[in-house]
């Protein structure tokens, strides 16, 4: 601080940022750019030929997906329903279990540090595991079917939800909670009356956000046989029925849009 002010006094016109900040930001920027160029170099190292025909090639393939064969829609409604059901079960369970976990991993609620760090770490680890790996492991454990799919989605959602919601909890207005405490409420009462109303809208919209992610994740689950629409999509791709596959994608798109719409309506109703 004093250094800076001295700079200012000496040169009559100070620069817009202190030199140290400038240097730090520049270094971070250069490192990121450098790493980017390295990544680009590395990933293109195996690339043969240029971009000459890239777009043409892509459009040829995209063309094969069109027009979507919408006549198969009735036949894929059932696996789509299964996917939605899997996502509902997984999201619901995750939403319920998230509540205690998120409270335990929110710094302003859990003042007992070891518990806070333990839950945080556990949640962080859960979050790092790709859904594909989870699906593979659960299929290994339970065999193919909806159960491993649901479990994979459940664990996966739990990690995301607990993080998002604990962050919301950490950002609530603590004043009403203090007021509750000042009027003699115990911990549960304080949480229930002071905290819950504040996080409810965010909670709902995060749960719906995760629901949407789960619908789309089921495509990945299908790759390893964990049930749902993904399985059918894979099969149709496998038999080169691209127009059928496109019909499935369209259906997923519609479902996602509908969820987003419901989600917006619910959020508006709750806020």
């Amino acid at each position, binding site marked *: 601080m004093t250094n800076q002010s001295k700079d200012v006094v000496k040169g009559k016109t100070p620069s817009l940022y202190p030199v140290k900040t400038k240097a730090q930001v520049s270094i971070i920027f250069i490192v990121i750019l450098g790493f980017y160029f390295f990544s680009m170099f590395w990933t293109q190292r195996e690339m043969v030929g240029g971009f000459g025909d890239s777009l043409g090639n892509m459009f040829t393939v995209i063309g094969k997906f069109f027009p979507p064969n919408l006549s198969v829609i009735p036949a894929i409604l059932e696996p789509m329903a299964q996917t939605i059901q899997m996502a509902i079960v997984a999201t619901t369970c995750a939403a319920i279990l998230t509540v205690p976990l998120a409270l335990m991993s929110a710094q302003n609620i859990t003042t007992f540090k070891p518990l806070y760090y333990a839950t945080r770490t556990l949640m962080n680890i859960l979050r790092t595991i790709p859904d594909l790996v989870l699906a593979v492991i659960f299929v290994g454990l339970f065999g193919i079917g909806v159960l491993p799919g649901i479990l994979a989605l459940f664990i996966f959602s739990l990690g995301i939800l607990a993080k998002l919601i604990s962050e919301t909890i950490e950002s609530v207005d603590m004043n009403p909670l203090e007021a509750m405490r*000042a009027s003699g409420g115990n911990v549960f009462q304080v949480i229930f009356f002071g905290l819950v109303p504040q996080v409810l809208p965010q909670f709902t919209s995060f749960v719906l956000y995760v629901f949407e992610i789960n619908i789309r994740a089921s495509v990945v689950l299908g790759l390893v046989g964990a049930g749902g629409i993904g399985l059918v999509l894979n099969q149709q791709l496998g038999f080169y029925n691209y127009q059928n596959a496109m019909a499935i994608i369209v259906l997923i798109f519609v479902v996602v849009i509908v969820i987003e719409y419901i989600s917006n309506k619910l959020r508006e109703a709750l806020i």
Partner: protein
Amino acid sequence: MIQFKDVGLVYPNGTEGLKNVNVTINDGEFVVIVGLSGAGKSTFIRSINRLVTPTKGSLLVDNEDILSYRSGELRKLRTKVGMIFQNYNLVKRSNVLKNVLAGRLGHTGTLRSILNLYKKEDVGLAYESLQRVNISEKIYNRADELSGGQQQRVSIARVLTQKPGYILADEPVASLDPPTSHQVMSYLKKINKEDNITTIVNLHFIDMAMEYADRIIGMRAGEVVFDGPVSEVNEKTFEEIYGRSIREDDLRGGADES
């Protein structure tokens, strides 16, 4: 009766919030505490219901030293000491009635309160309190639909349902405009007189303090620098509390606080 005996409070970061405070507040008094920002007014008030814990001396409420209280007794203490905050501290998204009922949490079982199963008397009491501060028609509005003054009245109603022996108010009118401020202060005064509830209020404005208080306590840097009835306040008191006569100093860079 509230007795501060040699009370001192040092915050974990080393700031001395209270220094050597000796004050006795009798039942039914309306005491206003004034002082600059950072003088320790909030610390003083929050010590009384142990939202902060003094580190030295003893603090007696109804002749019991509350400094040794642990969670169960603490809840009982807080049930009898109501508190009003500068920013109302209502749950914005809950309705007025629910906010007011929160004042009865200390008297209600956990399960009962979570299931919203309030006793009829409690709901009646809440409604009556709302009527006393003249806002019963907003009972089902959400708290954030109300203006500042209305919110503060709801928070007074919340304290009333608590049926406290003491009311603490930490700058209850700092966020309000003057007419509304007067209104809120008047309600506080009215309750103080009607129910004979000891009331301790923090205020920035010494003029408003003098209008409502029975007794004024001036604080500065954690110490009580003035304590006496309104009639004893004069220009010198003012300088004592604010450390200087205000006007002349303003243009000298306002070194200390701002």
